[in-house]
């Protein structure tokens, strides 16, 4: 291949290195108004009254709205949320009113002048406690909420989804096991921390046509959600996402757009803008849900796992419109990438008075694997085999069956494992850097599938220009992962024209074609396939015209370097430029007209799993498998962990752009490392104690260990050129691999993230005392 598999330079590179790419917060429009938000100081409180009169008297204030202006509930899978609180506030920081003013400073000052009376309600700030029968209800009306039919809320409780997986007979499995172990793990809330915070501008024309510019991953999904929430027909609502400064899931749904739209509706055509501060981002954008996991494992003496029983209790926060699906994804992936005959899983999405949980890179997988992969090491040690052996014995291989009973056809897990064992030199003992240091190496595996509706669709349009160049239109959003470049490469490959001749345009629901969402590591796979089909369509049209022009059968034609060429008579060829606007005959007449390639794609044959058992023969588009190895050392006096090296390998099907793919894996490692070592939203009674970079630390360049990444390529049949998604899976094994390596180094097992020096030291002391 000419362009696929090559490290083509990013098509958005020049704009980004010159600082000339305009992100939404860089937009300044004439007569723009600025928004500030009044937020609830209580985690759970009835709103008795809101008095905006003093705020409205402040010079420069144009409008104040509250939730009463639009009381209709919305949500992606479960309609449980309002953009501005209606009746009561369910988490600390929830928007209760919003101000539009001539400047940010005025809007901020006005917010202070809004008077809100609350009746404080008992709050529930722990998911396990929230499941108790007498717990305060966050959503007493859950039974009335509209919900997609694949989710199972339990009205009258705080459980907004109870997912069940029942494979085989777990009790029989435990009875047959030589050993049964049970381990518990806890993963706290973390935040995505894109460097660009959430931001949006909305403007409504006099004729009711609404335009929204938002830093969002999924313009079409946002359009749909806003259309439903505000009763605006889709042809009167345009969503544009000009650039996204990092998403990681946090910009997948709708957040602040719904706050500014009512203000735009009432501002007589003036654009209205809201940009979150970093503090807002921590509290009011999505956060990653917390997880209490219990894993019970039945294993035979020979290392074969015969039964697994999981209980996952997810802290979904105040609204779980999106979170219910994370809980489902975690449920059907709960066996991990292992072949286990008897699996019994209950995965609960639980409302609490905490910040809103939502999609975060990995979509539940990082959280459950923190338990699954540590559990495996614990079990292996208990029965006297190595972590590698237990994974070789139980790891999925072609011919095996997943937790939902699906037959595994393509799976490079064992090859990935081999690569990381090699790259981390797992068997080579190496000295620590000093007398107070202990060194440890370990591994972890991981898997993930795109969690999306079965019929999640992609589309693409290619317009050929009369000079032989092309415009590629998609709504797959380049949120940093490099999709603009990947889409360009795929189109270039099919049409055999250089990538510089293709301009990609994205993110405008009026002008770029439908894309379900830029999430789920599905863009290279799904949008890439739509681009492939669009380019093939354009090619087919070119061949139709070329066979007339050249007098050869179209079956004998091929695309070569900007020409349509006969494979039999290589001198018979015609340039794309000559046919781009149609075929012109010698007499000046023409046929066909401009070439526009159209491609649409839905992953084939994904079917709902059985509602009662969760079993299904093809419930997801594909699984991505991989492994990581970690080499680290622990300071035994301070408890500090220094990660020295991480090796990562994934089965990507087909590498489209090696350099950018490396970047995905490298970035994922550091993000995983951050959650393992530092990151946690410290919540006390519903209040975040560390909602700034001062006390919420993410890794810096100085924390970067040596990174070694590699790939395995077992092609995905339905993907473009065999490619499958990897951006999220790449983060999944990092935290448990680090935890496993800490065990190797100092013999302590930490069941909660993050692995802070303090926890490490305390665990070491506790271990010393018990000796």
């Amino acid at each position, binding site marked *: 291949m000419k362009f696929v598999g090559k490290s083509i330079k990013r098509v958005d590179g020049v704009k980004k290195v010159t600082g000339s790419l305009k992100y939404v917060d860089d937009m300044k429009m004439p007569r723009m108004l600025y928004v500030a938000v009044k937020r609830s100081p209580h985690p759970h409180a009835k709103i008795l009254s809101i008095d905006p009169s003093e705020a409205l008297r402040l010079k420069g204030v144009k409008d104040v709205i509250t939730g009463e202006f639009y009381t209709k509930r919305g949500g992606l899978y479960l309609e449980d949320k309002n953009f501005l609180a209606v009746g009561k506030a369910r988490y600390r920081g929830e928007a209760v009113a919003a101000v539009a003013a001539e400047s940010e400073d005025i809007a901020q000052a006005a917010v202070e002048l809004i008077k809100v009376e609350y009746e404080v309600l008992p709050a529930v700030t722990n998911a396990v406690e929230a499941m108790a029968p007498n717990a305060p209800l966050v959503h007493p009306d859950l039974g009335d909420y509209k919900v997609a039919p694949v989710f199972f809320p339990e009205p009258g409780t705080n459980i907004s989804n109870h997912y069940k997986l029942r494979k085989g007979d777990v009790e029989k499995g435990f009875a047959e096991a030589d050993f049964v172990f049970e381990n518990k793990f806890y993963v706290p809330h973390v935040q995505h921390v894109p460097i660009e915070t959430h931001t949006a501008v909305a403007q409504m024309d006099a004729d009711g046509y609404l335009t929204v510019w938002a830093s969002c991953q999924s313009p079409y999904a946002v359009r749909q959600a806003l259309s439903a929430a505000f009763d605006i027909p889709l042809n009167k609502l345009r969503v544009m996402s000009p650039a996204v400064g990092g998403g990681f899931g946090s910009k997948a749904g709708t957040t602040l757009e719904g706050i500014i739209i009512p203000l735009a509706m009432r501002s007589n055509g003036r654009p209205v803008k809201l940009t979150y501060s970093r503090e807002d981002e921590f509290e009011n954008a999505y956060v990653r849900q917390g997880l209490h996991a219990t894993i019970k494992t039945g294993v035979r003496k020979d290392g074969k796992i015969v039964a697994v029983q999981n209980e996952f209790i997810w802290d979904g926060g105040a609204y779980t419109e999106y979170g219910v699906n994370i809980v489902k994804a975690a449920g059907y992936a709960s066996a991990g990438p292992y072949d286990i005959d008897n699996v019994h899983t209950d995965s609960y999405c639980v409302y609490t008075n905490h910040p809103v949980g939502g999609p975060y890179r990995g979509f539940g997988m990082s959280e459950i694997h923190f338990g699954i992969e540590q559990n495996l090491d614990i079990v292996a040690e208990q029965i006297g085999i190595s972590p590698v052996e237990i994974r070789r014995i139980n790891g999925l291989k072609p011919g095996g069956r997943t937790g939902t009973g699906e037959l595994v056809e393509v799976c490079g897990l064992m090859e990935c494992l081999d690569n990381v064992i090699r790259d981390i030199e797992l068997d080579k003992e190496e000295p620590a850097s000093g007398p107070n240091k202990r060194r440890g190496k370990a591994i972890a595996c991981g898997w993930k599938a795109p969690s999306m509706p079965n019929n999640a669709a992609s589309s693409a349009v290619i317009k050929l220009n009369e000079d032989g160049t092309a415009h590629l239109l998609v709504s797959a959003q380049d949120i940093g992962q490099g999709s603009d470049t990947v889409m360009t490469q795929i189109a270039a490959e099919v049409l055999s024209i250089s990538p510089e001749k293709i301009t990609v345009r994205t993110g405008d629901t009026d002008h770029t074609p439908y894309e379900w969402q830029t999430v789920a590591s599905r863009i290279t796979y799904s949008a890439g396939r739509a681009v492939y089909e669009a380019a093939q369509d354009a090619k087919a049209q070119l061949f139709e015209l070329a066979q007339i022009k050249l007098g050869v059968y179209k079956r004998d034609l091929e695309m070569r370097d900007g020409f349509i060429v006969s494979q039999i008579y290589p001198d018979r060829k015609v340039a794309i430029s000559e046919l781009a606007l149609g075929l012109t005959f010698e007499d000046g007449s023409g046929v066909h007209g401009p070439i526009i390639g159209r491609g649409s794609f839905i992953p084939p044959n994904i079917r709902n799993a059985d509602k009662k058992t969760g079993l299904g023969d093809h419930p997801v588009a594909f699984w991505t498998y991989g492994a990581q190895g970690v080499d680290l050392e622990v300071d035994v006096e301070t408890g500090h962990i220094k990660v020295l090296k991480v090796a990562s390998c994934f089965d990507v099907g087909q590498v489209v752009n090696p350099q950018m793919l490396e970047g995905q894996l490298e970035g994922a490692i550091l993000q995983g490392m951050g959650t393992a070592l530092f990151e946690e939203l410290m919540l006390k009674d519903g209040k975040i104690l560390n909602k700034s970079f001062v006390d919420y630390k993410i890794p810096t360049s100085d924390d970067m260990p040596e990174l070694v990444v590699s790939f395995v390529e077992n092609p995905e049949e339905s993907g473009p050129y065999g490619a499958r998604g990897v951006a999220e899976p790449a983060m999944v094994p990092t935290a448990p691999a680090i935890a496993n390596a800490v065990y190797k180094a100092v013999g302590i097992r930490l069941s909660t993230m993050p692995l802070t*020096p303090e926890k490490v030291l305390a665990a070491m002391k506790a271990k010393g005392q018990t000796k």
Partner: protein
Amino acid sequence: MRPFEYFRPSSLKEASELLVRYGDGGHLLNGGTDLIVRMRDGLTLPSAVIDLKGIEQLSRIREDEESVYIGATVNLNQVGRHETIGKSFPYLAEAALSVGSKQVRNRATCIGNLCNASPLADTATPLMALDAVLEVFGPEGEREIPIRDFFVFVRKTSLKPGEIVKGVRVTKTAGQGVFTKLARRKEVDLSMVCMTLLKAEDGWRLSYGAVAPTPVRLPKTEALLNQGAALEEVLSCAVSEVKPIDDVRASREYRLEMVKVMLKRGLEQIEKGGAVS
């Protein structure tokens, strides 16, 4: 940010007069890396911001045979990279370079770091160990404040209304010293605990940050060290002389443990001659 008047006086007298005129609403601006964030967050609401960077004499590091003097608007990178400071007080240089990021240190000043009176001011512990002296200009003339009398409580100093710290003076001391800082992340983080241990000609000096409402010296521990007491005794004494709290960065218990570990390691390092004199 709330409105305020901005002044850039060119003399200390002018600055002090402004400070007096605006009373509690007057705030001095050295580097601004703390003040501007506090103003953004609405924690400090000045009616006047008085920028000291227009006062030429405050912007220099001066030295003579006996001492080194760091002016009020000298930034932390200038302190950290100063040749004499690097030679004579490497632990002070290290402390200066341990604050924030490079960008922050290009603005933040050593004097600002002290005047914030944060319990965890990184440059405070070496200066405490050095018995540094703050030179102060005020409405009633100039005076000197020994650094151990300077910190009163969290964000509170012994400065009187209208007083401005011109700079800090340290006497060149032969000896070996170590600065160590323990933080969650190696770069750009606040101290969970920081410490300076100095073996001067006249004996040991030991100071800690982030273990009490102000940076502290540990005189009893110093005395034990001077007497050549056993390590265990020294370490327990150090723990008894500090009063850390629980916060988001670390627990009291962990901090106490680290007070010992850092001291033990500091002593080892000095014994090995690892630190420069």
